């Protein structure tokens, strides 16, 4: 069964550094998402992406965040200047069309020191 792939599985970075989290959505999917989950808390929506542009973003998704689909397969989340509070599990998800369920990747655990 096709799956969403995320790399790396764990990323450690120093405060103030830039990080790029990478995702390869399922190949025929059209909608892409990033969510985050701070340890012990609920899964929070960051941003959705469709037709090569952001379709919706949350309050969390401020100017330090950006997303890109540089080619036909990758979907990346960039955090420009990481803060301690950015430490979380970041999930990429994709779906084929409206009304279909989201399929999640295994997540990238980001640790900011």
């Amino acid at each position, binding site marked *: 069964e096709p799956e969403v792939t995320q790399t790396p599985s764990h990323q450690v970075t120093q405060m103030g550094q830039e990080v790029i989290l990478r995702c390869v959505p399922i190949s025929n999917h059209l*909608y892409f*998402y990033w*969510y985050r*989950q701070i340890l012990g*808390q*609920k*899964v*929070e*929506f960051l941003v*959705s*992406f*469709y037709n090569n542009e952001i*379709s*919706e973003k949350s309050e969390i998704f401020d100017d330090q965040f950006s997303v890109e689909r540089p080619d036909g397969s990758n979907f990346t989340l960039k955090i420009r200047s990481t803060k301690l509070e950015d430490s979380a*599990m970041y*999930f990429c*998800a994709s779906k084929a069309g*409206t*009304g279909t*369920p*989201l*399929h*999640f*990747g*295994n*997540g990238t*655990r980001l640790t900011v020191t």
Partner: protein
Amino acid sequence: AQTVTQSQPEMSVQEAETVTLSCTYDTSENNYYLFWYKQPPSRQMILVIRQEAYKQQNATENRFSVNFQKAAKSFSLKISDSQLGDTAMYFCAFMKQGAGSYQLTFGKGTKLSVIP
């Protein structure tokens, strides 16, 4: 805006028994989808079951079934014949229906422990 409430932070069940996890939601939408996702200790998010709001029949998926009460805005998950591998966090989630990239809104989760 939609909200999803899971009032049971933790639950436990004996292996082979049945357990029900509660979920309520608040929305002004008439058409939407509801989901249960499972997050085992590995922290991946796995879709368990899905319900379309326009369907009166409750969804079932093997040992997993839901009790969907649209008027009460309630969407509980029943796990029958619980297995040790069912130990996980369970998240209830809501998504609007329509031609858009609508996001999932999650509840805070219920931590389920299956006891041998």
